[in-house]
């Protein structure tokens, strides 16, 4: 346990600060389909190792060794000045790590660089209307035809489907194999004929997701990643990365900070919200949880950089992180009282309604990417070696 900053590290911090000051007028944030200025900023970040830091240079990354302290310094300095941290889309957070683990050399060379630079935008085709928690029961079929597969079926919960160039998708290529062994993980363009995207409006009032329908979509077999019939195992590697992403402790800490600022600036009957001991106590309860998840995250990062399994400390991140985000939003709504239910627009709306938006969207995150119940099964079975759900007499 040693988080002190050596002179070398303080020098690195100075370097980051200098970069951020110098390029202050070039800050441009993430977007599904980034504009040229954002693409330029992203390239600049990669060139300096502030994005895609540990991804090998040959695939378009910066190629640095993992270093927990430098990673922390970059995060701290970017957060301090509010500089955009580079793209964090599903292509970068899910597909790139998967390709690095199981992609062919050609796939890595072809896709990782453009994805990192924001030139290729991806969407994910995993869940289906009938295959949610039980993802392995997916039914979208890919029938072999010469060098191609012909794909039919549908996917749901596909965010950015309308803007994406490409999809990484799970399809059933071996209909007669046991359910986990018949799936392949395949990449193909969203411009392929036969693909229809329908926006899926949620409780927030916006369509954060889509349904995607495939009717005889012909795609080359060469798009398969990690071997035909191996898709379930490839996808599980990817899901692991998603779970990490959903429990980002830095984002949670920023949200708590915003909550406390809100409570210091807002008042009711002339009394600041933070001066209400009941709300203050709840804020402190959440702050303790934020700290546990922040330090738990540093612990996982240390383990991951040392090539060690993070064990229980890793398994709990998604369950606890998503719930915590939801609870922070809930306290903001409660402390705002009647103002807390306002939405959409109007002069009395706070933070563009983002507390309510988060409260609802986070509930979706608690459900998505493995429901809380599935997470608890995983924690019990993998973390505590408890028995798996027994087989049924009638199943």
């Amino acid at each position: 346990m040693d988080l002190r900053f050596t002179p070398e590290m303080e020098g690195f911090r100075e370097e980051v600060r200098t970069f951020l000051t110098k390029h202050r007028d070039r800050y441009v944030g993430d977007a599904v389909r980034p504009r040229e200025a954002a693409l330029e900023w992203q390239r600049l970040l990669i060139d300096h190792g502030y994005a895609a830091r540990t991804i090998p240079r040959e695939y378009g990354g910066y190629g640095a060794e993992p270093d927990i302290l430098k990673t922390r310094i970059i995060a701290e300095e970017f957060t301090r000045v509010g500089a955009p941290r580079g793209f964090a889309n599903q292509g970068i957070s899910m597909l790139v790590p998967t390709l690095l683990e199981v992609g062919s050399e050609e796939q890595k060379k072809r896709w990782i660089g453009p994805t990192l630079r924001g030139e290729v935008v991806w969407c994910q085709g995993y869940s289906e209307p009938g295959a949610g928690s039980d993802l392995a029961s997916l039914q979208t079929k890919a029938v072999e035809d010469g060098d191609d597969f012909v794909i039919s079926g549908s996917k749901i919960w596909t965010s950015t489907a309308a803007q994406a160039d490409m999809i990484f998708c799970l399809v059933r290529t071996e209909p007669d194999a046991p359910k986990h062994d018949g799936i392949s993980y395949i990449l193909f363009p969203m411009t392929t004929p036969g693909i229809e995207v329908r926006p899926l409006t949620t409780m927030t009032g916006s369509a954060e997701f889509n349904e995607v329908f495939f009717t005889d979509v012909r795609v080359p077999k060469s798009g398969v990643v990690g071997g035909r019939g191996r898709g379930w195992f490839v996808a599980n590697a990817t899901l692991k990365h998603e779970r990490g992403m959903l429990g980002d402790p830095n984002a949670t800490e920023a949200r708590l900070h915003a909550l406390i600022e809100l409570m210091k600036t807002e008042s009711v009957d002339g009394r600041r919200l933070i001066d209400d001991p009941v709300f203050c106590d709840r804020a402190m309860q959440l702050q303790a949880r934020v700290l546990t998840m922040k330090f738990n995250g540093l612990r996982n990062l240390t383990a991951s950089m040392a090539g060690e399994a993070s064990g229980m400390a890793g398994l709990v991140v998604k369950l606890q992180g998503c719930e915590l985000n939801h609870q922070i939003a809930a306290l903001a709504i409660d402390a705002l009282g009647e103002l807390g239910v306002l939405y959409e627009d109007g002069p009395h709306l706070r933070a563009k309604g983002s507390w309510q938006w988060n409260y609802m969207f986070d509930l979706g995150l608690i459900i998505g990417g493995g429901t809380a119940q599935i997470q608890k099964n995983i924690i019990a079975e993998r973390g505590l070696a408890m028995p798996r759900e027994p087989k049924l007499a009638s199943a």
Partner: protein
Amino acid sequence: MDFSITADQRLMQESLARTLEAAAPLGRVRRFAADRDEAGADVWAALADFGLPGVIIPEEHGGLGLGLLDAALAAEALGRAVAPAPFLGAVAASVALTRGGSAEQQARWLPGIASGKVVAGLAIGEAVAGARDGMGVKASGGKLTGGALFVTDAMIADLFVVADTSGGLHLVAADAPGLTRSVVTSIDLTRRLGELRFDGVPAEPLAAHTLDAVRDAAWTLLAADTLGAAEVMIEKAVAYAKERRQFGRVIGSFQAVKHMCAEMAAELEPCRALVWYAAYAFDDAPAEASLTAAHAKAHTSEVGRFIARTATEVHGGMGITDLLGLHYWFKRIGLNRQLLGGPERVRRIAAQIQGLAA
């Protein structure tokens, strides 16, 4: 001589549910939610045919002459249907007038309210839940100045029940000079809120100490509305869990899902008795009315949040989609929770009522 609702009350509730099925099915509610300028006049007309606006108004003024328990049972049905209707204002104005109005005021306003022709809006938020954003209404020389937020049905109301910052209650006609109103949008699009601005607006004062009764009645109705909405969420979750299959079995056969449903039911069912009692006490046990109304409001709000969230979870991803529309109930419960005071605020008042807090 018993703690239960009567056969008549049960019949009334069932009949109202049928009326709402016809007049305000989910498709109708969706149209109301989508068109923010739509007044929902057809729904209100159907409820007026039923006599609902005058449920607690004495028969001599054209009402049904029933009690707050009947109104609460109606509110439960409205919550079940997530029905758009200015019912809260109608009952609150009825209470304000029957408890604090002169004979002349009663004769002038109650028949219109009872028939549904006079729509009433409730503007007591600041006095009950505290003032934010510089809001609050001052009364001086029969005129009102200031602002009120979170006013129910502000844009379609003909009459407002307004509380000033000292706890006095006033009637204000919607066309009174100096009154301006604007839309305020909440998450719950099945109800309409607005903001009122008062610039020396002439108002009719009501008797002192009427605010508590209006507040207690409104709290009880909000609790009943949440009760109804939460019931439906449990029913939908249970039905979905019995039908949706994953891993070769219906998800309702997984103990985790079963227990989520059991916990929802275990939390909600006792709320029913408290809501009933608060409504009963309003008419028949006045010494207990404020405390039980406060607890009904606060506790049902907490339970409602738990159910809104848990029922959504049981539905998995479908729970958050607009396809299913479960979010109408989720948001209805969300607005009920905050309107006229969130649980923490209302519990503080509950403590004050008993002399346990300053």
